[in-house]
């Protein structure tokens, strides 16, 4: 049996890689993929605790996280398409219309 803190370490590592991707990359598609990565890290933690405690509640919450991730990807990619139609770019530095 794998000790539970190894799952938490894996979740923390994946979450941090996602944070690095969001903070440093300029391509908006890679940023959206990094957000999916962070949601996966959360799911690992939820399911690790669910398995550890013998409960199904953690798995239910993981299903809701997946639902939110799917909705977020659909809307986010819709925004990306609309953005690309207007500005012909994937670079977040060039999308500064609302920047003060």
């Amino acid at each position, binding site marked *: *049996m*794998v*000790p539970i*803190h*190894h799952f938490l*370490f894996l979740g*923390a*590592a*994946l*979450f*941090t*890689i*996602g*944070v*690095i*991707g969001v*903070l*440093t*990359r*300029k*391509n908006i*598609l*890679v940023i*959206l*993929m990094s957000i*999916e*990565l962070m949601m*996966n890290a959360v*799911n*690992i933690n939820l*399911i*690790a605790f*669910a*398995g*550890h*405690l*013998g409960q*199904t509640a953690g*798995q*239910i919450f*993981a*299903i*809701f996280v*997946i*639902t939110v*991730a*799917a*909705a977020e*990807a*659909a*809307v986010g*990619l*819709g*925004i*990306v398409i*609309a953005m*690309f139609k*207007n500005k012909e770019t994937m*670079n*977040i530095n060039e999308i500064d219309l609302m920047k003060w």
Partner: protein
Amino acid sequence: MSVEVVLFYIFAAVAVVSAILLITRKNVVHSAVCLAATLLSVAGIFLTLHAEFLAGVQVIVYVGGILVLFVFVIMLISVEKTIHERQFGRGWMIGLIAALLLVSELGFVVWRGRDSLVLANPAAPAESPLGLTGNSQLVGEALYTNYLLPFEIASILLLVAIVGAVALAKRKTQAE
């Protein structure tokens, strides 16, 4: 060491390495392939935790749905142009330092509290009121009894997301 333990470490290594490749590759298509590897190994980790239903959902929804959506969007935009641009923003050093602080903090907290996470008496598998066994049955039973309202709210959320995505993608641009 049992097979489960070995598989967990293999899947964890694949997940972390392909996640690092995801955020460092210049080509978005390569990033998408790395994301697929990460998602599939996370599904494998769910299997080692005996969450078989979630592993199936992970493969179907993430790899079969979200990732295909990403690939479609990549095909719609011009990848060639974006490869030659600068890939990292000016503040990448600050972001990296902040993220390393975050991971060291998370790692420290988990390492300090690792003994408190171990249960004195290992939990027995969840008891089903209907006498069901098996992961899918237990998840389905909980989803349609105790968590019925959140389930319906999630379905409303998906409906709103579909309508929103269609409305966003269909909007006329200034050029048209």
